């Protein structure tokens, strides 16, 4: 992170070194790795670390974006610009059956939409390209079942996670052995916190989608959550009028399922300050997590990342 190393590494330097070490292990031992790139801040950090890990080579794996068709427009344009600038290979996948059936959060509800357009779509893409190792940007501090997951998290040929029977993970020696058809999800950011991510973005000047910064955006309020009207597929209820509000997003996903927060934070310092002073967690903004308790563990067992 700096040109001369001091004798004691800071915790961010340690986290950086750990993530790079993990990525290099995967590239050395997996047959066909891929990086799941979701365009959010964690993916931004993960991609930046990959650029560092293999420099001066390019990361020796493609990026995969599972596009549900309902991502914020700004995410897609940011993604395409960045990939072009870095000269990387990007694969995108949308569940073709879901697309044909017109599956979306407004018509089918968040649970069905997420299952078909995200979970099933991801499995399709991993099977299609026969990826045996997939990097994901999940962190253990995000959620209580994530806190239990290994850095190298093993999946059956059906993409299932067995939380009661995880391989022991000792020191930083990772067991990458698996049978035909089985795969491994790898989480290089496991030990990072939300603050670590933001501070690293700040220190390393990593570009992120502008939606993280406050700006005037058209929103409607539904069940206490501010939803941005990102395109005209959003059906407005009787008398519902999009209002312009100064908002930003703590986490990014499908726009109809992502709550905005009212904010004036438009620099990284502002964002970090707001995050440290707020008393709610970042996942609060994700509509899908409210569906049922213990929902993440269940989703993960079914193959959600």
């Amino acid at each position: 992170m700096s040109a001369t190393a001091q004798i004691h590494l800071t915790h961010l330097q340690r986290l950086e070194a750990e993530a790079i070490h993990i990525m290099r292990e995967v590239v050395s031992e997996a047959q066909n790795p891929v990086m799941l790139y979701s365009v959010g801040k964690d993916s931004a950090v993960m991609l930046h670390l990959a650029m560092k890990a293999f420099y001066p080579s390019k990361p020796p794996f493609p990026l995969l974006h599972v596009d549900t068709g309902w991502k914020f427009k700004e995410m897609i344009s940011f993604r395409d610009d960045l990939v072009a600038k870095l000269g990387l290979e990007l694969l995108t996948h949308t569940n073709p059956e879901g697309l044909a059936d017109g599956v979306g959060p407004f018509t089918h509800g968040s649970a069905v939409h997420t299952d078909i357009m995200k979970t099933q779509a991801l499995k399709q893409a991993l099977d299609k390209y026969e990826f045996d190792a997939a990097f994901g940007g999940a962190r253990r501090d995000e959620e209580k079942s994530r806190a239990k997951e290994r850095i190298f998290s093993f999946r059956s040929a059906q993409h299932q996670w067995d939380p009661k029977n995880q391989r022991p993970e000792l020191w930083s020696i990772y067991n990458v052995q698996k049978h035909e058809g089985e795969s491994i999800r790898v989480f290089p950011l496991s030990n990072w916190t939300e603050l670590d991510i933001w501070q690293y973005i700040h220190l390393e000047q990593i570009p992120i989608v502008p939606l993280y910064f406050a700006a005037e955006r058209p929103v409607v309020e539904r069940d206490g959550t501010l939803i941005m009207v990102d395109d005209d597929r959003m059906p407005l209820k009787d008398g519902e009028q999009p209002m312009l509000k100064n908002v930003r997003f703590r986490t990014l996903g499908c726009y109809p399922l992502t709550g905005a927060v009212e904010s004036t934070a438009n620099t990284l310092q502002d964002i970090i300050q707001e995050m440290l002073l707020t008393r709610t967690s970042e996942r609060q903004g994700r509509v899908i997590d409210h569906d049922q308790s213990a929902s993440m563990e269940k989703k993960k067992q079914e193959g959600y990342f």
Partner: protein
Amino acid sequence: MHQSDLISSDIDAYLKAHENKSLLRFITCGSVDDGKSTLIGRLLYESKMIFEDQLTALEQDSKKVGTQGENIDFALLVDGLAAEREQGITIDVAYRFFATEHRKFIVADTPGHEQYTRNMATGASTADLAVLLIDARQGVLTQTKRHAFIASQLGVRHIVLAVNKMDLVDYSEKVFNEIVDDFKTFADQLDIPNLHAIPVSALAGDNVVDGSRYMPWYEGPSLLGYLEAVDVETEETSLPFRMPVQWVNRPDLDFRGYAGRIAGGIVRPGDDVRVLPSGKQSKIARIVTMDSDLDEAVSGQSVTLTLTDEIDISRGDVIATSETPPEISDQFDTTIIWLSEEPMLPGRSYRMKTSSRLVSATVNAPKHKTDVNTLQKLPAKTLQLNEIGNCTLAVDRPIAFDSYNENRQTGSFILIDRMSNNTVGMGMINFPLRRAANIHWQNLDINKAANAEQKGQSPAVLWFTGLSGSGKSTIANEVQRRLFASGRHSFILDGDNVRHGLNRDLGFTDADRVENIRRVAEVSKLMVDAGLITLVSFISPFRAERDLARNLMEEGEFIEIFVNTPLSVAETRDPKGLYKKARAGNLKNFTGIDSPYEAPENPEIEINTDDMSVEDAAERVINGLIERGIIEA
């Protein structure tokens, strides 16, 4: 100034301070229900790491599945798996993160239940410090000792003994002192340089973050106070320089870099280095990173090095200071903790992974195992789940290493089962054994080729495998008769016969079966060297050992013949009456009945005796040998 004030008034100053906080990685461990998860939950809660939405969820969960009635059950903050909440126990490690004004913490809450000891070891392997909990009502238990022993074996140098549930023993100083004395008697025999004891109540919060008004007799710091202040700095940078090569970076013909994470010491351009195990010498040319080249890099950093000379280096090699390079050996004295329900099989070939190298390893029978209760060394033939033993280990090629005492990263390894791919053992290298180095291979004038030529044949091993009574010996006998008749030199190694002599000391446990096959494989290799067509007729139920035999021979020399007779047919034949005995329970570990048979996946020749006569079967084997050019038609 208070942290949150600094956050509001000067965020840049806060971030600068936060960036330079030191990091402490610790675990909670101890026996089941001692209150580990409750303690972590309490720590997170009191250090304000719990958000409002999480707190609301916690309050609801506590009412629904908690162990504390209407009150908050802090353990639910860490016991995140559905099964854990249902059973009220911890099954796997939870990693949680928090920070105070002075430090950043990564804590791993580990399970106390004996069944999940390997998950405790997972947490302990990366910890600087262990908080060992004891239920004040129970005192020191076997599991307390087991965890203390594992932590000390793994090199965790700081242990905080947290005597918990003091609220249930009237906050009694006497109870506390007795428990601490009791533990110290035990711990004196272990290598724990720093031990500190604190009386706490995880539930009520006494001495967790703040002091306790019920225990004025305790004058030391609270648990958090201790964790914030304790000095765990290990002088990794003062170790000799080591970097295991993970990945060779070759973007184009002009650049060849070696990527890895520094596992000890400091490195600077111009330093003299040695590459192991080849021993080649060179100098560091550059330390390359995406930001810019570095003037120096230290233990813990991930970097890419280039050298001044073009030398052949690949993944798994170690680049080290040429002054004090690591040792090289292919045999070691090690301490192994067994992590699998399947016991360790001495003689079986496992995959062994060190910092970044994958090799084959076989473990010898333990010299002893340790009784965690008494720390007595007991004789052992194998290691069962959670047992800790001292074993000699041999690898298939020399590797560079340090003793675990000196360097946790270059002295540790895991063992992986070839069939299941599971991590079945973890180990620490104590010291090298020089046996292999002192017994040199004797080159003989009359070698295998000469022996074979004299006999006018290509030597080979015909390995007959299959259930008892499948017809292996009958078919092998017929094949040998035909070979003999056509003037070939051959020999039969028969399971029953060899067990009368060479292998008379072996029984039928899995471990003995592995050793049985290992010896026969070695003998058949000698026979092949003598130029013989060697027929081996052994049940040889495990794929791993048949593969071991195959790997001893040269390409094409090993012909696996699967005598595939269904169990029902073999059992009706029952030529030696063994199936009957086994079914009656009078014969233990009988293959096919209460001991597994792992069928070959790609045998060279497969015979189903159900629909084939002995003559036809022998004919098929002979034809197979002709097809493979071992004998002529």
